[in-house]
């Protein structure tokens, strides 16, 4: 993309923001359209749409600097393929849901895949951003270096902001070398045993990468130096899972695919984020968990109150689908007031809507 093309697109978007503000029309940022099943990503009919897909391309990739800078509308697949050529990856393995997921959408949603257990989250990897905010300012925060404490950490504020603060024009992400070896082990265990065992392992120097418990089976992925993976496999035991079966499983978990993520009509899917050692009870019609027990998925009848349940465990809940008056656990009043004022900084006119944060 030439500088002129970039300038033209930004001016066009600034104009659109200006007009929308004058006409009091909502604006929605649309990336790949891959998260359409998430109700808070629905685009109202009257909305002005900023479609980021024309705003694509890798601005800079420096394998020895461990950093890639990518325009918001770039498809995730494209970035991952580029990194793979140099044996690097985005270790937080963001969900794709459907083809076409964009990097802007990845950062705006802040969702990370199962490897977050061992390799961290998208938040951990963000180094810098360029933003077009609701005041039509083009702002740059952070940068391409690993350590940077000049100014407040706005880059990370934008992770998980769901397009409510502005358009992510570009994002700099820390990338990692793909560890040389991986192996997946399987165990027959109850959820309670599995979580207890995982937390014990996590306190030992083992190359744990990802874990899933579902339907009486615990799956553990090890990922690291060859020697470490071999030793750890012997140490934790269980049954070795063939490579292609393991790959298929982790892709499935990463992208929230059916049958595991299937939700029968009339039931509701909840994502609970709770302290990993909080007591495990298999609530709802179906229950499974990721990590050492911190991310729990519950398929429940419509009247089940996931917010109250998660609060009781010391965590919070996310109603993952369906019409609702609230999707995300409420924050205490003082914190909500600061959040509202932070929104005023970037989108005082509330052009971009509430995302999953507000009352539905």
């Amino acid at each position: 993309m030439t500088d002129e093309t970039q300038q033209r697109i930004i001016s066009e978007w600034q104009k659109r923001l200006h007009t929308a503000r004058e006409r009091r029309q909502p604006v929605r940022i649309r990336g790949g359209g891959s998260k359409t099943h998430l109700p808070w990503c629905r685009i109202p009919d009257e909305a002005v749409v900023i479609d980021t897909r024309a705003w694509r391309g890798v601005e800079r990739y420096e394998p020895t600097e461990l950093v890639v800078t990518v325009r918001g509308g770039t498809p995730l697949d494209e970035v991952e393929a580029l990194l793979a050529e140099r044996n690097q990856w985005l270790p937080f393995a963001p969900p794709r849901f459907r083809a076409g997921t964009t990097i802007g959408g990845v950062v705006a949603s802040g969702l990370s895949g199962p490897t977050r257990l061992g390799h961290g989250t998208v938040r951990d990897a963000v180094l810098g951003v360029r933003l077009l905010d609701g005041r039509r300012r083009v702002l740059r925060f952070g940068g391409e270096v690993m350590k940077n404490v000049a100014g407040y950490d706005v880059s990370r504020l934008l992770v998980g902001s769901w397009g409510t603060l502005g358009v992510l024009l570009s994002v700099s992400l820390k990338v990692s070398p793909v560890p040389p070896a991986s192996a997946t082990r399987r165990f027959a265990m109850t959820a309670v045993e599995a979580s207890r065992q995982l937390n014990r392992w996590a306190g030992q120097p083992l190359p744990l990468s990802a874990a899933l418990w579902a339907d009486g089976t615990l799956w553990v992925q090890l990922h690291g130096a060859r020697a470490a993976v071999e030793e750890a496999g012997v140490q934790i035991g269980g049954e070795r899972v063939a490579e292609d079966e393991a790959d298929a499983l982790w892709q499935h978990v990463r992208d929230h695919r059916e049958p595991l993520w299937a939700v029968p009509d009339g039931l509701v899917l909840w994502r609970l984020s709770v302290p990993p050692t909080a007591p495990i009870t298999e609530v709802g019609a179906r229950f499974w968990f990721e990590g050492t027990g911190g991310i729990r998925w519950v398929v429940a009848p419509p009247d089940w109150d996931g917010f109250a349940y998660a609060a009781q465990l010391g965590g919070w809940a996310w109603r993952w689908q369906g019409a609702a008056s609230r999707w995300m656990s409420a924050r205490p009043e003082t914190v909500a007031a600061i959040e509202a004022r932070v929104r005023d900084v970037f989108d005082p006119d509330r052009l971009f809507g509430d995302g999953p944060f507000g009352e539905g």
Partner: protein
Amino acid sequence: MEAVVDRARAWAQTERHFEVDAEQLRACLLAVLPADRVLCAPEELAPYECDGLSVFRAQPLAVVLPQSEDEVVAVLKVCHEMGVPVVPRGAGTGLSGGAMPHPQGVVLSLARLNRILAIDPVARTARVQPGVRNLAISEAVAPYGLYYAPDPSSQIACTIGGNVAENSGGVHCLKYGLTVHNVLAVRGFTASGEPVAFGSVAPDAPGYDLLALTIGSEGMLAVVTEITVRLLPKPVVAKCLLAAFDSVRAAGEAVAAVIAAGIIPAGLEMMDRGATVAVEDFIHAGYPTDAEALLLCEADGTEAEVAEEIARMKAVLEAHGATEIRVSRDEAERLRFWAGRKAAFPAAGRISADYYCMDGTIPRRAIGAMLEAIREMESRYGLRCLNVFHAGDGNLHPLILFDANVPGEWERAEAFGVEILERSVALGGTITGEHGVGVEKINQMCVQFTPEEREAFFQIKAAFDPDGVLNPGKAIPTLHRCAEYGKMRVSGGALPFPELPRF
């Protein structure tokens, strides 16, 4: 030193002026705190006049030493009602003047909130008060085979509250992350004394990531009174490899090559010859003093894993021109390798009356070029500079040697530092990797950020602290200040980059 004190006063006056009745303020503080926790006499205030950057000093109206959250709130409420600036302070080891007092304000020391409140070895977390020293956390959890990863060189003294405010790093942060990657949640109070809690011991938290904004906010958004940190299992073994090079450029290229080979060392540090010699005279770590540059490269993990990684690192370093390589044979030798690096600052203090530590970060590929540029600046400014680096993450710590008692030397040292910082920005880096902006680098913020970006920072500050009483005047320069700085730079004409490109 008198000139220096004047500068600090001038700093405060270019920012907003606060009208404060000192007597009334002290009376109100004494009404909410026992008398031994309110310091007012000049000799009591003296130790609090500066942080680790002692060239910037100011005397506050009072220093308070609360021992509980309730006392912190009481102080915040008094100051908020009277419109008095509050400057939080941990151990005062900061290197950018972040904890430098405000002349019309109160220093709020969190040092006496120093209890470890809970350790959960199963969940691998510790909940601590802000005045707990960084190293004390790792010591307390060692019996469980755990540790707290970020390890600033000041870790025996600096507090976890200060670490949160600066987003501090250490020699292991390339592999294990900075404070922001290792703190799960904080509790604290806004300037008006309202309780807030950000983050969660769950894998993530709802709403905007206000925890990320708070970490590295230099005590300007909230006073942090409780911190929950993530603990990691201690690696079974660690080994350190020491490699010598006959040019800084070759050493810089070797650093990039290690990363390109897909290795993430647990630590990757570099020292130039000046630093090596100073350290060797002091610590006798056994460093080769004829090498132009040394690399320290650490691997940790299981025995087999470490053996595998050390072999790979060794091969890369040899291929990139290392003239000598030593691998630590035992823990004692590994610690000796590190002892030199960790003593770099005091070693500088030993050979020079004063030293000025810079903190720019640049892309790793530019390390060699930067060191050569610094060498040229040494002769231009007529001052020596020792270079130690967190090379793995491109974070430079040039130590500029000067003598504050020699007229003009501090000014030259400062100009030297400014040139390094502005060169860092020009190379695609930043003016501060881990020490913060404070008062020290406030002018360089004008170079790194546009007026609109600085405006956004002020707006964020106001979202947390609408009255602007929490550590005012630090970190974010006003438009007015940047305009003045712009004028100074143009008329001074000494700077080699009149129109620095922004990265």
